[in-house]
């Protein structure tokens, strides 16, 4: 039976291999370097210019808070301005939460953080149709530690342009 099951399992596993996306780190970065400019030729290089405020893509939040702090107002407004000036541009706002507590509740907390950045952007003139606010909850932590410094790093909304 064991042998039969093993064969079965291997069969099943190889059957689902096509669904599995597991590029190695190396091939990912290589692919990115090559394909990204072609992926969206309209993606403005200014978005990646480290001297430009548009290269700032993260908005951090206090514990249990969803208010965009003053220190991030300029960043959010600059992206809103870019969206206003580039009607074809679209952004994905990904909210995040720290790891403490329920995964689904943290997903909803991350959504609040994404929604508040979206509100700030639409108030500054971006169109709602240019923005999708989503949450990654606690599932994609930037900092993987289990301390306040890591948690603070993960209470965040990231701004990603379509094509990035």
């Amino acid at each position, binding site marked *: 039976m064991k042998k*039969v099951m093993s064969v079965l*399992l291997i069969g099943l596993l190889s059957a*689902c291999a096509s*669904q599995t996306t*597991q590029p190695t780190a190396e091939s990912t970065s290589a692919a990115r370097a090559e394909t990204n400019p072609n992926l969206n030729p309209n993606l403005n290089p200014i978005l990646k210019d480290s001297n430009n405020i548009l290269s700032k893509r993260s908005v951090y939040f206090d514990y249990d808070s969803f208010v965009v702090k003053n220190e991030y107002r300029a960043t959010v407004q600059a992206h809103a301005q870019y969206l206003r000036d580039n009607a074809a541009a679209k952004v994905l706002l990904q909210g995040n939460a720290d790891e403490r507590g329920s995964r689904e*509740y943290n997903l909803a907390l991350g959504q609040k953080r994404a929604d508040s950045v979206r509100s700030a952007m639409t108030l500054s003139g971006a169109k709602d149709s240019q923005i999708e606010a989503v949450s990654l909850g606690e599932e994609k932590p930037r900092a993987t530690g*289990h301390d306040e410094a890591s948690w603070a790093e993960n209470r965040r909304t990231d701004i990603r342009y379509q094509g990035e």
Partner: protein
Amino acid sequence: MMHKSHDFLSASPVNIMRPGFMLIRQRQSSRRSLFLALALWLISAPIQAALDIEIFGGGASQIPIAITPFAGEEKLKHSITAVVAADLQRSGLFRLVDSPGPPLRDPRQVAYPDWKSRGANALVIGSAVMLPDGQVEVSFYLMDVAKQVQLIDYTMIVPVDRLRAAAHQIADIIYEKLMGDVGVFSTRIAYVVKQGNKYALQVADADGFNAQSIIEYSEPIISPAWSPDGTQIAYVSFENKKPIVYVQTLATRGRKVVANFKGSNSAPAWSPDGKRLAVVLSLQGGSQIFLVNADGSGLQRLSQSSGIDTEPNFSPDGQTIIFTSDRGGSPQIYRMAVTGSASGTAERLTFEGSYNVSPHHSRDGKGFTFIHRNGAKFNVAVQDLATRQVQLLTDSRFDESPSPAPNDRMILYATEVKGRGILAVVSGDGKTRQELSMQAGDVREPAWGPLPKSASR
């Protein structure tokens, strides 16, 4: 589940006796730890798929049971006896008594006084005979040692690759006869394994064997939920830069999108008839509960608040949903009617503490299990819907995602040991706990599957 656990806690041995069965109360030292030397099912999978099981503690009352080796099973590739014994022991409600001597095949061979002197109250004997057609005839008898009577005489014919399932069925029959409620040894569990940057949604037998990956991705998977008939699993995948709800059929591996609306889509929960799911969408602002048909059609909004309404869970009668909401300033558990239109009306159910989340109805509908923040700890708790009495069942640091067994006797949940995610099972009275871990990787997001359809014994 709360009723059962209280009954069990307060029961004198007489109260949980089955007719014609003598039970002796056993006192257990609370620190007793048993390790089940289970043969591990190691397969050459990208993600190692076998769970180690460790049991801690034991209920106040355990039935001492002797299981003699099934006659003839030495000719088979798998032992039935070991599976039956491990199942019963894992429930925390049985204590295994040594069974010396040769296998017994006939109840007339049983010398009752010998078994009584060994301390056994129940005795199982059995046999396994390979038939000419390649199937196996498995027979067993269950005896009440004190009364010297036979309680069960059962024979089944099974294909040789179903011997393990047959053993689980035997354990269910014994459990049902001695405990008076349905056994869950033939059920399955689903959970998510994270190894490095790889995530796998796996399904395994309730004892951790026969684990198989349903889907694997390099992006997170959360919130698996079994369809009521056990043929499908709904889950949330982040493979497309945001949470999307899918339903996957286990037999075919085919899957379909159930909720992929603008914004986030999460927290799927099946209606008891399997026709609809409650999901949480940010489509209309906030995180709100919607109903959607299992094929993704017929979306309608159900909850109506300005903040977070999430983690919906249907009552067994399908009439109400319990869910987590922050409408009162902190996350608490509420109940609302499943009506045809969105409503802001909901009854608050939890009042102790500032963080109560992840509610799941007991299968009898009389209570629910949830996570309660207890100081700096997050613990599994149960609450009775009628009396509102709360009972904390665990004392660990980071418990998550409680999922009750189909007989409400145990609750499966995720916790953390030495920084690693593992699954654990706690009995409804909090006295017995098991840990199910993997040698490498984090295990989380457990969901206990329904009773198999053939369980209508």
